[in-house]
């Protein structure tokens, strides 16, 4: 039994943590939140230089050629710092889609740009409120042209390269669109202003097939599973940071002549939050193992990782405010940035309820 990360992987994680502690303090996320900027271009460039944006991209396409275990740990640190960059959209979604389904030409053309951070990528699935219905998308791909509207698209308004799930004569397909050609990009107001959300309207935009025509929904599902595991690590990183800040605050804040951390109602809830994060971490580890080893169990493991990390982070987001009292409800304190991030990350890949349903379907199929 060796259900842990290796020493080298942990060292990589430590380097990433130190780097982000320096380059991405919470004030950086706040600066993005309080400006019209959609992300920190400077941090984006730096992460590209560190090789993170091409973490799992093969070296021949300009990537670092790491495994998923390494990427998972980077994701955790990105989450811990609340880094205001389109990391999840570009790395776990767009790059992964092209690695999985791109032709050699497409990989050469797109992955090199994504790895270098010259292009921001994303995957566009949703078409309005409700579940991510993969089979029922309306956006149409015909004769090399794409028509329809995708909303909301994570980082869609800043994306240079968009993988779109569309309807075709054969069923559904994934297609790649250049964000600068025939796409009307509009910024939407995000619950978490440190993470951009956009609406994309395609009016005959030129697009090319990614993978097999007719297989779009199945391919999208695979991408979502993989992204769910990586996002779970990001969520856990964010939850751990929220937990640390909360614990620190309760130790320093006095009421009734004692630190509030000595009240059992606080201690026991911190114990519960800790427990929730531990369980989520264990499920995420298993997801990472399944991802790295292309296990048959990736489908169920991704669901468990996704739901559990979402639950842990949402709890952390609620508790950080509650345990700070009134200051937690101010714009000035950072608590709400965690509250906001918890919900945003819990929704962009589909809600926990959707993933619980998916889990049961998969368990039924396996029985």
């Amino acid at each position, binding site marked *: 039994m060796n259900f842990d990360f290796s020493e080298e992987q942990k060292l990589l994680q430590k380097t990433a943590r130190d780097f982000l502690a320096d380059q991405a303090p919470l004030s950086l996320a706040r600066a993005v939140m309080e400006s019209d900027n959609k992300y920190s271009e400077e941090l984006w460039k730096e992460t590209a230089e560190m090789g993170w944006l091409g973490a799992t991209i093969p070296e021949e396409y300009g990537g670092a050629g790491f495994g998923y275990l390494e990427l998972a740990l980077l994701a955790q640190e990105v989450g811990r710092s609340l880094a205001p960059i389109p990391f999840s959209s570009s790395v776990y979604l767009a790059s992964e889609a092209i690695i999985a389904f791109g032709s050699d030409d497409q990989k050469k053309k797109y992955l090199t740009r994504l790895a270098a951070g010259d292009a921001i990528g994303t995957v566009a699935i949703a078409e309005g409120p409700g579940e991510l219905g993969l089979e029922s998308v309306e956006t149409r791909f015909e004769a090399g042209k794409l028509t329809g509207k995708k909303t909301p698209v994570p980082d869609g308004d800043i994306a240079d390269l968009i993988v779109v799930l569309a309807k075709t004569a054969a069923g559904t397909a994934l297609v790649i669109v250049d964000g600068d050609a025939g796409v009307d990009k509009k910024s939407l107001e995000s619950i978490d202003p440190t993470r951009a959300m956009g609406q994309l309207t395609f009016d005959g935009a030129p697009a090319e097939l990614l993978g097999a025509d007719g297989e779009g929904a199945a391919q999208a599902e695979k991408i979502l599973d993989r992204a769910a595991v990586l996002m779970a690590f990001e969520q856990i990183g964010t939850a751990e940071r929220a937990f640390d800040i909360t614990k620190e605050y309760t130790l320093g804040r006095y009421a009734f002549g004692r630190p509030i951390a000595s009240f059992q109602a606080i201690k026991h809830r911190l114990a519960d939050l800790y427990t929730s994060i531990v369980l989520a971490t264990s499920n995420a580890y298993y997801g990472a193992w399944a991802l790295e080893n292309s296990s048959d169990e990736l489908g169920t493991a991704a669901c468990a990782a996704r739901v559990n990390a979402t639950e842990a982070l949402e709890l952390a987001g609620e508790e950080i405010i509650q345990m700070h009292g009134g200051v937690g409800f101010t714009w000035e304190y950072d608590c709400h940035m965690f509250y906001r991030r918890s919900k945003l990350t819990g929704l962009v890949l589909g809600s926990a309820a959707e993933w619980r349903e998916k889990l049961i379907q998969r*368990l*039924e199929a396996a029985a």
Partner: protein
Amino acid sequence: MDFEDTPEEAAFRAEARAWLDANAKLRNPDEPPMGMLEEEGGGGVKRAQQWQAKKADAGWACITWPKEYGGRAASSIQSVIWNQEEGRYRTPPSIFGIGQGMLGPTIMTHGTQEQKDRYIQPMLRGEEIWCQLFSEPAAGSDLAGLRTTAVKDGDDWVVNGQKIWTTGAQFCKWGMIVTRTDPHAVKHAGITYFIVDMESPGVEIRPIKQIAGASGFNEVFFTDCRIPDKNRVGAVNDGWRGAITTLMNERSSIGAGGGGAGVKDLLRLAKQCKRNGRPAIEDSSVRQQIADFYIRTKGLSYTGSRTLTAISKGTTPGPESSIGKLVGAPLRQQMAAFAMDLQGAAGSLVNQDAAEEGIWQLAWLGAPGMRLAGGTDEILRNIVSERVLGLPSEMRADKGVAFSDIPTGS
């Protein structure tokens, strides 16, 4: 990252399996483990003792104990592997856990040579069964509030008082008892620890009927019961130190458990039972709930894998290893309650009259005990928040106060 045995672990597993194959029958994976002691009556004790003796003869009893005590100085990971392997066979449930898991190690740490020579071998062989006489009517979570007294008289100590919730006392030859020997000291300082012969005069054992009807635990009354001083474990008034050793071992043995009906069984049940005129498994709230149980079950099991990894590498498991019972016991209770809900009105039946021979009802009736024994949910949260997270300890009304001056409710 992998789930494979190291070559040494694989070799050990093969060795264990070879012996088990030759000496026991494989259990069908769907068949529940053999029943607990309460259901078995007296025959269960005999069978458990025979199996234990067989293991002892072959060197498979208490394998982590040092060789001088009859063990094989096995590592913790070997002990886990042995338990996994033994669990695959139709073997009687062990009734020796309290002695072998908690009290034996306490005697090895704090006992005299004479005590080790006398008690350890028969304990390892299962010839003598042991119980833990800690809790009292007025001292459970607050164990150090115990009131049973021991007073020195010549070479003996004379013990008076009452213990309660003593698991298995009715089958035991020996018990380990914590007593108050100095009521004027602060409470942890006036405690002395003894080995007591459960057959000696002045010991009266009364089984207590538990909520499910069986009598797993007892109350034990001590009336002028004499314990020779040579049965004292550790120094006079220093018994708390030994009690802590026992409790540390309790924590490492509890929570290992698991087993019992699981998510697979819930899915099957939800197919069989109807809701809204359709199989309950088609109901979205049912699906959401089962998914939640699955995720918590897996989270717990992979947390176990992380702990095993640390053990396998010979390092101390991280703090994550402390949450097992705190998550597992309420989970068990909620899953059982949910299964009964699925059965609707028929969920109110038990045993043979109930669906699936009442396994869920039995689990539901047993679960509250899991949430109490070996540290209640609340005490475990205290432990996690104080020892793992480093939060301040409780404000105490009894700090620095002589035991005799501490306020009580009765």
